[in-house]
């Protein structure tokens, strides 16, 4: 027997006291329901005896939500005449699965099958102000209620429309699989009702009660990505795959140091005469070339003879940056107490947030208008900046957001879109501009080098003080989040004079243990590297330092690392995930000498994670053969157990994917991947130089455990796993080799590759591909 459909809300007496949400019927030919984009802010419990740190009271996501409140525009769910629903998501999709989650939320509240929901990415919409920012693992948290509200109002409007047409009370109607039905047997699918349900003149306010999470049938169940089939068949379209008339391939010859400038092009005519080449022109950070194929762009940019001006950090190398960081570290307040203190200093080297899809954008700049296509996490800022650069009014610049092949923080910036627009304007033709792989590593954004100094003191079984000083090359936040947070921060209990970066630091960092007097401070040095966030901002570094010192404290105080953590943890959720990880990951099981376990916990984005990893440091593993002469092996994480409490897990399959992805990022930054800066440029220029985790580095055994729902709201997930896995791997490595590592990644001291030439900036592609078939 078919399950009964859902009755009309309002007929259940238990719903009387439930909160109602407001939305609008938008004037349109078919039903369109708009809501303001906001979410209520959650508040964490204050903890004693450690005074609540700012992150406990109001974390970054809350601040983003608050900043959004008074300025929101409307986002709309539309019902089409074929019975499907459409929604233009004002967020980026870069692999994190936000489009799938949005479709699930709409399907749930509309009682519509998942495959009848179409999600597209919204163009830049300046009226949304800062409500069109994808970052800080905030998308699900900020969109959860608004999307459901719009869908629920749409459903109610469809039901009311049917009731009116059929002359029956709405309370007698049910909805299921996109059909409104009456007990008399009469029914209509949503597409048949949408025109009549539409609001013809002005918008009308409507409110609705949302489904209880206990009644969910789609949300909370494992669902595959809605774009999975397009992906496996090669049909998914990235910006580079788009066909915009006249937008021929374009690339840039770049200077040999970061942010170097063009003094002169010395052979422009000769390069213009090369096969396929149509245009050559100097732009801000190099010389653009446009040709029939990207291969001919590479030939052309390599043939260019350019005289370069200096860059912004030409005299800097790893060692000079490290020296400046050490000099800038803020003092610790508590003096060292000999045997009663743990003192440590950790170095985290530059790392790259390059995605596998190189930065690229299509730009078609005309004399009085412009159109841009790119993967952008803050498209409004991109639109504003590009309009200003082109000298055009905002409404003459269309910015389309395209699904991206990864981001990891990179697409918070729109450098490549601005560069494409600049080049298109200069030559008066459309371009599809792509950075080469080497450009992406050498001139692209980086996670800046930082040092983390820790001092903890203890007495009679208690930790009395815990001080952490994070000193970093400045993280560039100029992408526009700044205004919003600065505005919000003025109302925060963190003081009025903090710089933006300090605000972000305080909003994202906290110590989860009862360690007496706790201070965590940030200082930055203003070196002009091209930096930015990288799947978290500070947490992977800060938490790794923190958890390594926790293990040292436990050792000094004669306690087991798990028992020590359990006794000092402030938060019940963290204790619960810790216990689960200990059980599932079999903490303390017998392992050969040279193999060890590490445990770490982390709480952020209103989620909690515990990670238990095993790292094999035996010589036969460290020196195992790999299929490429330039791949690195080193210690291997052989097993990982990740336990996550995401509050209300919306899509367990997607959540698990984010945990797995975060894990592989963490393994890379602890064991293998970094940039080596020499004389103003990273030496890394390919994926065989920048050692992101490969198949031979990933754990053969991975177990992700998702804790049952325990909240009415979901936590963030995209970045959540990186910090605790990084810390866990570092702790396991320390135990396996019997010495706490202090420089990350642990292999940074050895340059495991022959650097590609600095000039020309992009190497030529090989020609021996047919010698390597299998």
């Amino acid at each position: 027997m078919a399950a009964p459909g859902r009755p009309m809300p309002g007929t259940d007496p238990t719903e009387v006291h439930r909160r109602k949400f407001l939305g609008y019927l938008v004037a349109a030919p078919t039903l369109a329901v708009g809501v303001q984009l906001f979410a209520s802010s959650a508040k964490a419990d204050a903890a004693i005896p450690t005074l609540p740190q700012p992150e406990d009271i109001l974390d970054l996501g809350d601040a983003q939500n608050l900043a959004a409140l008074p300025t929101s525009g409307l986002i709309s769910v539309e019902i089409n005449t074929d019975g499907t629903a459409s929604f233009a998501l004002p967020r980026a999709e870069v692999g994190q699965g936000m489009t799938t989650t949005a479709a699930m939320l709409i399907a749930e509240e509309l009682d519509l099958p998942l495959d009848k929901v179409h999600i597209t990415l919204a163009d830049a919409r300046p009226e949304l102000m800062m409500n069109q920012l994808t970052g800080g693992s905030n998308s699900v948290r900020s969109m959860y209620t608004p999307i459901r509200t719009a869908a629920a109002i749409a459903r109610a409007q469809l039901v009311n429309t049917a009731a009116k047409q059929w002359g029956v009370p709405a309370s007698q109607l049910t909805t299921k699989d996109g059909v409104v039905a009456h007990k008399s047997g009469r029914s209509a699918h949503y597409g048949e009702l949408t025109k009549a349900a539409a609001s013809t003149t002005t918008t009308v306010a409507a409110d609705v009660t949302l489904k209880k999470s206990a009644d969910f049938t789609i949300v909370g169940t494992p669902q595959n990505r809605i774009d999975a089939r397009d992906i496996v068949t090669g049909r998914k379209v990235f910006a580079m795959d788009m066909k915009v008339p006249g937008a021929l391939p374009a690339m840039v010859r770049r200077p040999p140091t970061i942010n170097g400038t063009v003094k002169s092009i010395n052979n422009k005519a000769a390069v213009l005469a090369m096969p396929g080449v149509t245009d050559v022109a100097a732009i801000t950070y190099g010389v653009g070339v446009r040709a029939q194929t990207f291969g001919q762009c590479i030939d052309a940019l390599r043939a260019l003879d350019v005289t370069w001006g200096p860059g912004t950090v030409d005299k800097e190398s790893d060692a000079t940056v490290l020296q400046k960081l050490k000099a800038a570290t803020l003092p610790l307040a508590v003096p060292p107490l000999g045997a009663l203190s743990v003192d440590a200093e950790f170095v985290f080297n530059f790392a790259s947030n390059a995605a596998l899809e190189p930065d690229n954008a299509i730009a078609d700049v005309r004399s009085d208008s412009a159109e841009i296509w790119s993967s952008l996490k803050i498209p409004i800022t991109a639109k504003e900046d590009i309009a200003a650069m082109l000298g055009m009014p905002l409404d003459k610049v269309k910015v389309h957001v395209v699904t991206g092949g990864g981001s990891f923080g990179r697409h918070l910036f729109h450098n490549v879109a601005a560069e494409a627009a600049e080049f298109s304007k200069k030559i008066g033709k459309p371009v599809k501009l792509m950075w080469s792989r080497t450009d992406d590593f050498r001139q692209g954004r980086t996670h800046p080098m930082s040092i983390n100094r820790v001092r903890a003191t203890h007495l009679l079984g208690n930790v009395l003080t815990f001080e952490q000083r994070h000193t970093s090359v400045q993280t560039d936040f100029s992408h526009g989040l700044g205004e919003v947070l600065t505005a919000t921060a003025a109302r925060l209990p963190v003081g009025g004079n903090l710089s933006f970066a300090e605000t972000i630091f305080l909003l994202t960092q906290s110590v989860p243990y009862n360690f007496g007097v706790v201070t965590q401070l940030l200082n930055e040095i203003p070196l002009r590297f091209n930096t930015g966030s990288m799947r978290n901002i500070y947490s992977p570094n800060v938490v790794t330092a923190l958890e390594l010192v926790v293990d040292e404290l436990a050792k000094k105080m004669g306690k087991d690392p798990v028992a020590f953590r359990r006794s000092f943890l402030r938060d019940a959720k963290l204790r619960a995930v810790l216990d689960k990880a200990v059980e599932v990951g079999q903490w303390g099981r017998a392992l050969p000498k040279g193999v060890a376990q590490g445990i770490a916990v982390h709480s952020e984005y209103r989620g909690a994670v515990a990670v238990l990893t095993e790292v094999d440091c035996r010589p036969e593993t460290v020196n195992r053969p790999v299929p490429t002469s330039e791949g690195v092996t080193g210690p291997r994480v052989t097993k990982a157990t990740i336990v996550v409490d995401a509050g209300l897990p919306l899509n367990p399959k997607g959540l698990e994917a984010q945990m797995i992805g975060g894990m592989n990022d963490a393994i890379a930054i602890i064991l293998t991947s970094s940039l080596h800066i020499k004389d103003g440029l990273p030496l890394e220029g390919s994926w065989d130089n920048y050692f992101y985790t490969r198949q031979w580095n990933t754990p053969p055994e991975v177990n992700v455990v998702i804790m049952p729902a325990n909240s009415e709201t979901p936590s963030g997930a995209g970045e959540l796993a990186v910090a605790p896995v990084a810390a866990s791997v570092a702790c396991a490595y320390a135990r396996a080799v019997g010495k706490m590592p202090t420089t990350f990644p642990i292999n940074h001291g050895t340059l495991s590759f022959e650097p590609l030439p600095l000039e020309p900036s992009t190497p030529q592609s090989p020609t021996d591909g047919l010698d390597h078939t299998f």
Partner: protein
Amino acid sequence: MPTHTFQLNGTRVTVDVADDVRLLWVLRDILGVTGPKYGCGLNVCKACTSHINGKAFNPCSVPVSQIKDSDEITTIEGLPATVGADLHPMQEAWLEEDVAQCGFCQPGQIMAAVALVHKVRAEGRQITDEDLDGLRNICRCGTYPRIRTAIKKAAQNM
């Protein structure tokens, strides 16, 4: 301009392009076949992995002049037709495991995986963890564990 003729996904194609242009750009920029992706152009990331006469190779590192008239090039777009189905068993396994995240590397991953299974089978063996460790294709989203599961699963159905 020289012309080059070969078999692409079961169809005979002829292109007019300079000899040294790498096949990847012939496929993407001239023929509009965009399943194979550019991730490095250095035969390192393997995002463009396709098949030549049934074997995995990387068109970013092969000048079009090296492709012979009789060569059969198969990209992800042509993979299902090699088994006469809507989807190849490797693609089915990819869907079952929901392997992809951003999806950019996945066509190359799938093409490499199919070739690996064929190679191991030709050697009369089952896929081992060491075989999987040997796959060079980068996934910057870190989907490796699900890739391993999907390949083992698909190998049962190929």
